[in-house]
């Protein structure tokens, strides 16, 4: 085992570090994930600076503005950005997940049009997958895309839990293009301009009172021919690519949220009573062990990635551990520091966000079922929707109810 850089990696790290040292004064000061317009503008400008320095899209092919490097260089970049105390990129969903999906499935025209502006945060992307009635059962989406005689499409429906929709120029949208086939087969992915007539974006307030997500309505929105990403009817396959990159992002960046054992310990250590309380220390030890396990599981995942293995569904376990350990940490902070910690201090917002984050990227229950079936090989739960055309499903559901 060896956690050291190779000479090439060390050289790369030095390069990244010196650039960041020379330019850190240009970075905006960011506390938490604030989304006031001036902060967002500053963060987008900072992403542009990072992109110009070659620090965005590290693993993207060079022909699309990336660096053509490996996951290790991405991790080194993340580490150095964190160590420099500057914010990372603003459009992590676009650069981390949606861009790579377009690289894998998009047309050459789409790649040339969208990837450069995405990298530089000139155009932010959002992910239009989840719907009010299709989250865990994502293939149950209802947003309808209908092909017109001239090859254009008309899209209607509703998406929800959309991060960055209010800042986005485009969205990657999963739609139902054919309701008369089983539900996984009739889906098509599109690139949708968020300023198209018929698109309405509304902020969605959460437990904290802030609106970090949106709901997005599509009312007979026209999309020009060639807006499809990947073949018509293969939206599910394209979406799986996005989810695979999401797992890579989680595997690479479990600490990039800044949820780390040492930081929770520092918050507790500030209170002398909490610091010397045996019960607090034991609970902190259990929480810290989870975060340390995540760090070294990340190194194992990285080793596998480096050897060319594709990240598998076991990555979902990391998300479950991350969220629950953070919930336990929030519990401990409030228990130790009192009700003030619910509204004040750097962890207050997180405590209110975590119940929702538990369902983000797949509810804990659906992730556990997926891991149980695909990693442990346990038999699937019997399903009532197999092989049934989507258009007949609803009536069957109503009949069962």
């Amino acid at each position, binding site marked *: *085992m*060896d*956690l*050291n*850089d190779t000479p090439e*990696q060390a050289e790369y790290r030095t390069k990244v570090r010196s650039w960041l040292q020379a330019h850190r004064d240009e970075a905006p000061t960011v506390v938490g994930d604030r989304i006031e317009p001036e902060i967002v503008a500053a963060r987008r400008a900072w992403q542009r600076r990072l992109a110009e320095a070659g620090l965005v899209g590290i693993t993207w092919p060079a022909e699309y503005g990336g660096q053509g490097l490996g996951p*290790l260089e991405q*991790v080194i970049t993340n580490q150095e950005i964190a160590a420099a105390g500057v914010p990372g990129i603003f459009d992590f969903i676009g650069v981390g997940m949606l861009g790579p999906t377009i690289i894998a499935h998009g047309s050459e025209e789409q790649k040339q049009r969208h990837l450069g502006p995405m990298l530089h945060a000139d155009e932010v992307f959002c992910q239009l997958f989840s719907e009010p009635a299709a989250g865990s059962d994502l293939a149950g989406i209802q947003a309808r895309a209908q092909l017109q005689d001239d090859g254009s499409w008309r899209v209607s429906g509703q998406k929800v839990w959309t991060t960055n929709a209010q800042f986005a120029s485009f969205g990657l949208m999963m739609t139902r293009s054919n309701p008369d086939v089983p539900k996984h087969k009739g889906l098509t992915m599109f690139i949708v301009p968020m300023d198209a007539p018929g698109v309405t974006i509304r902020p969605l307030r959460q437990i904290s009172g802030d609106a970090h997500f949106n709901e997005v309505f599509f009312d007979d929105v026209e999309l020009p021919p060639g807006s499809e990403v990947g073949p018509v009817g293969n939206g599910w396959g394209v979406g799986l690519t996005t989810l695979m990159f999401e797992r890579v992002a989680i595997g690479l960046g479990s600490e990039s949220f800044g949820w780390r*054992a*040492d930081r929770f*310990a*520092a918050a507790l*250590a500030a209170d002398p009573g909490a*610091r*010397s309380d*045996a019960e*607090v*220390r*034991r*609970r*902190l*030890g*259990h929480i*810290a*062990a*989870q975060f*340390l*396990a*995540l*760090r*070294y*599981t990340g*190194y*194992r995942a*990285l*080793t*596998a990635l*480096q050897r060319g293995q594709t990240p598998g569904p*076991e990555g979902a*376990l990391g998300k*479950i*551990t991350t969220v629950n350990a953070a919930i336990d940490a929030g519990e401990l902070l409030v228990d130790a520091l009192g009700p003030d910690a619910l509204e004040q201090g750097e962890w207050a917002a997180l405590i209110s966000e975590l119940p929702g984050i538990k369902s983000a990227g797949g509810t804990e*229950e659906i992730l*556990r*079922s997926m*891991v*149980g*079936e695909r*990693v*442990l*090989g*346990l*038999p*699937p*739960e*019997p399903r009532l929707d197999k092989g049934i055309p989507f258009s007949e499903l609803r009536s069957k559901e109503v009949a069962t109810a």
Partner: protein
Amino acid sequence: MNFELSDEQTLLREAAAGTLSRFKTVAAAREALEGTAPPDLWPVACDAGWPGLLIDEEHGGAGLGGLDAMLVHVELGRVLASVPLLGHVAATAVLAAASGVDGDLLAALATGDKRAALVPARPPEDLEETWTVDGRRGRHRVGAAEVTGDRVSGGASWVIDAPGADVLVVAGVDGLAPVAMLLDAGAAGVSVEPTTRYDATRSLGHVSLDAAAGARLEVGGDALARAWYLAQALLAAEALGAVEESLKRSVEYAKERFTFGRAIGSYQAVKHGLVEVLRRQENLRSLLYYAGFAYDELPSELAIAASAARVGADEALDYGTREFVSVHGGIGATWEHDAPLYFRRAQLSRRLLGGAGDAAGRVAAELFAAGEAAAAGTAGAAA
């Protein structure tokens, strides 16, 4: 960056598994509870070269690292093998670090002709400034054995692998200073009371020392601290093996046992419980690798890494062995089934060497200490 086992390490683990597969260790664990002493597997361990894992090649050992020793313990734990290796390996770690140790003794320990056991002590921390050992009951701790000249008095309870050892490496104190003492187990004033509790495959002893004569080892207190954390990590390694076996057997059963016309593993409640075992098992594996890596390459993080591995072991072992019982329903709670043997192993192991609660406290202590060191470093830099 490479955070996986090397080919040699995988081979070492597989060879250990192969060696142990020739014996019905799990059945022997049950028979041991019924009063039949488990077969003596020490000669098998000697043939495999395990006693000399941490002793250098010059003295006939394998000259391997802490992670390698942990991998062998994963396999021992997987089949509940009753081999008094943990205490021996931890003791040889101290002897290997010491100067001037009799080469013949090291050679005899490397071949296994002689067996050692560590009488470990818990290193001080911010809230407790003395070296302590497990007392007879619960979380009760007492001071480590006291050394005056070449005499040691005191003792420790629940010492792993002490019965039958030829030599004892005792972590003691002279005043507040830690001292490592080497004692012949047969020396006057040394008493080891063999103690079997709940899991008959785990050799334990209460060690009493009454002005027993021994030799001071030329080694610092850091080696005694390292041995304490190595023992923690070896316990965590055993736990990983036991949890892997518990999960494997539970999953197999969940696929073949049917109720209401379905395999029980298709029910979400059963499936999610098994996935929780997997989650805890994989966290433990990462923490164990971290502990092995820290022991071999990153000594400044050994205390937090080994303690975190111990915490991870506690979480995985308790949950995993309880699932092993409950997935099997009523059958899993019968004497004939293997699950109760894993449950017994778990419940005893969790309480040894300070218990997992103590390890959790140590993780916190290390985090606080690191935070203060970082703050002092920043302040120093600013000044």
